[in-house]
């Protein structure tokens, strides 16, 4: 019936397992043998060095001590006096060194144009260079763009541009720093101690201070517009030493007859008015004809020069009756130029009484503060002259920028009154508005032109190296005050 049965095992082979294996691939790779090497070094000698700046401590001398502190002094003086007196007398009679000249460096024989700096945007819009300024280290030249020939209120945007001439990759067509400004810039002045701080005066009457070492917003402080500030174009800004050493206040002079002093408040980013002078026609002592206009009229200020000798004195140029010197009180003295508006005034860095001024009468006048009439008048050009500066190294040399695009340099030591050098700015007749000598590299001169370019000229050795008797000649010239 029922029997036990064993059957064979029945199995089914996996189909997917095999196919999985079939799609498998294997790869292997191996890097090339890596080369290694070992080496050791050891410093045999170690040197440590460090530096630190130190505050300048002014040394105090005690020079009026009692002689009994120095027992041998009198004996020594007796001996030395004879020797020294003999040498002095021999020296004053000696001709041994007459005409003996030594030159330590190669003499540069000619004047050459080192760079011609332009800002393409400004040139396209026809803006002119109204002012140039070197910074205190002499490596950066800054220029302000604006317009001088516009009579109307102008809202044209302008620029302040700076080039660093010591950089190797200097691109004359691209400034290193470009600051956009709302209205045309009329004047520019770098801070005498801080290389990155620069102040500028605008056509709208605002005065701004920029700090180019900041990464963002470059404006350090500004005046804003109020009843106390300038309402007319500001023609000159200048840094004046303040009460404490190392502190500087900003002086600005504008068309409205106001000369204002500002202190920089970096925290509030504002310029705070500390004092000011308003020049009023009634207060100006006239040296010649009486004033014809009745009532009080504010005098237009076209140029200001600060005396490097006397911190309270500055010259203010006003048209058309002449200039005035003001001290802290109202106007003290008035000089006549008899020519027309004065465009630029500059005090001599070598003599405390001398200054030179130029204007629309095509002459450069050399004045002394002791008398109203000029000491000397030189013919500079056939048209207006816009800027004049004394050379920082040669007491008898000054340079003037003319309306024909030439810079004329005069040497008062020569007998002839013709210019000793004429430097053509190559602006095809357009005027040259401003010029500045480099304070550190004294053979460089920057000139700003109406075609929107700044030329940097390297002057010859003849124009920059001081001769033996120049200071004495300047003194003589200054003393020719007419009785």
């Amino acid at each position: 019936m029922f029997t036990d049965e064993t059957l064979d095992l029945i199995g089914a082979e996996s189909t997917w397992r095999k196919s999985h294996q079939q799609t498998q691939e294997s790869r292997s790779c191996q890097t090339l043998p890596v080369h290694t090497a070992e080496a050791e070094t050891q410093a045999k000698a170690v040197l440590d060095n460090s530096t630190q700046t130190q505050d300048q401590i002014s040394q105090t001398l005690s020079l009026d001590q009692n002689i009994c502190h120095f027992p041998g002094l009198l004996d020594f003086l007796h001996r030395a006096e004879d020797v020294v007196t003999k040498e002095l007398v021999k020296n004053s009679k000696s001709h041994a060194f007459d005409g003996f000249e030594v030159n330590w460096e190669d003499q540069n024989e000619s004047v050459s144009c080192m760079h011609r700096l332009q800002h393409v945007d400004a040139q396209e819009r026809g803006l002119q260079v109204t002012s140039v300024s070197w910074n205190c280290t002499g490596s950066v030249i800054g220029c302000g763009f604006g317009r001088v020939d516009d009579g109307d209120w102008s809202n044209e945007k302008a620029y302040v541009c700076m080039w660093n001439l010591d950089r190797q990759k200097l691109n004359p067509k691209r400034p290193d720093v470009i600051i956009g400004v709302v209205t045309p810039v009329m004047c520019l002045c770098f801070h005498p101690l801080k290389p990155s701080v620069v102040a500028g005066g605008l056509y709208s009457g605002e005065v701004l201070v920029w700090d180019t070492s900041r990464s963002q917003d470059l404006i350090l402080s500004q005046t804003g517009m109020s009843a106390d500030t300038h309402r007319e174009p500001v023609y000159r800004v200048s840094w004046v030493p303040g009460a404490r050493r190392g502190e500087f206040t900003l002086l600005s002079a504008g068309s409205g007859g106001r000369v204002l002093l500002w202190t920089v408040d970096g925290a509030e980013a504002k310029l705070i008015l500390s004092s000011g002078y308003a020049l009023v026609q009634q207060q100006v002592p006239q040296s010649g004809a009486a004033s014809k206009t009745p009532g009080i009229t504010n005098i237009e200020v076209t140029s200001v020069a600060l005396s490097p000798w006397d911190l309270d004195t500055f010259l203010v140029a006003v048209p058309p009756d002449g200039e005035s010197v003001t001290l802290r009180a109202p106007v003290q003295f008035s000089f006549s130029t008899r020519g027309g508006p004065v465009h630029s005034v500059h005090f001599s860095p070598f003599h405390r009484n001398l200054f030179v001024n130029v204007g629309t009468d095509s002459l450069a006048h050399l004045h002394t503060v002791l008398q109203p009439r000029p000491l000397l008048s030189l013919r500079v050009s056939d048209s207006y002259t816009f800027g004049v500066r004394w050379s920082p190294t040669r007491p008898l040399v000054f340079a003037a920028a003319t309306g024909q695009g030439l810079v004329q340099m005069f040497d008062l030591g020569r007998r002839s009154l013709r210019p000793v050098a004429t430097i053509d700015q190559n602006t095809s007749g357009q005027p040259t508005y401003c010029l500045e000598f480099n304070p550190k590299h004294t053979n460089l001169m920057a000139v700003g032109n109406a075609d929107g370019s700044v030329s940097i000229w390297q002057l010859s050795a003849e124009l920059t190296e001081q001769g033996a008797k120049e200071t004495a000649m300047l003194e003589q010239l200054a003393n020719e005050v007419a009785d």
Partner: protein
Amino acid sequence: MLQAEVEETIKRIQSQKGVQGIIIVNAEGIPIKSTLDNSSTVQYAGNVHQLLMKARGVVRDIDPQNDLTFLRVRSKKNEIMIAPGKEIIQKPKQM
């Protein structure tokens, strides 16, 4: 009395032709009397002292029996005359 004599002597030298100023310096190079302003005095005294020591060294190096009697430094604008004795320095100017 001594003070007056010293002042007299200095005045006599100062009145020579072309003398711009006189500085008297002690053995350490510190100025003790001067007719110039403080900052110039300090500048001259410091610099000249070193120069004097060097010059004296040169003379004695070449001939140990010799010694420096006078040093004159002539420049474009003026001349410095130094009479050592125990390092005393004067500075006249020549036109």
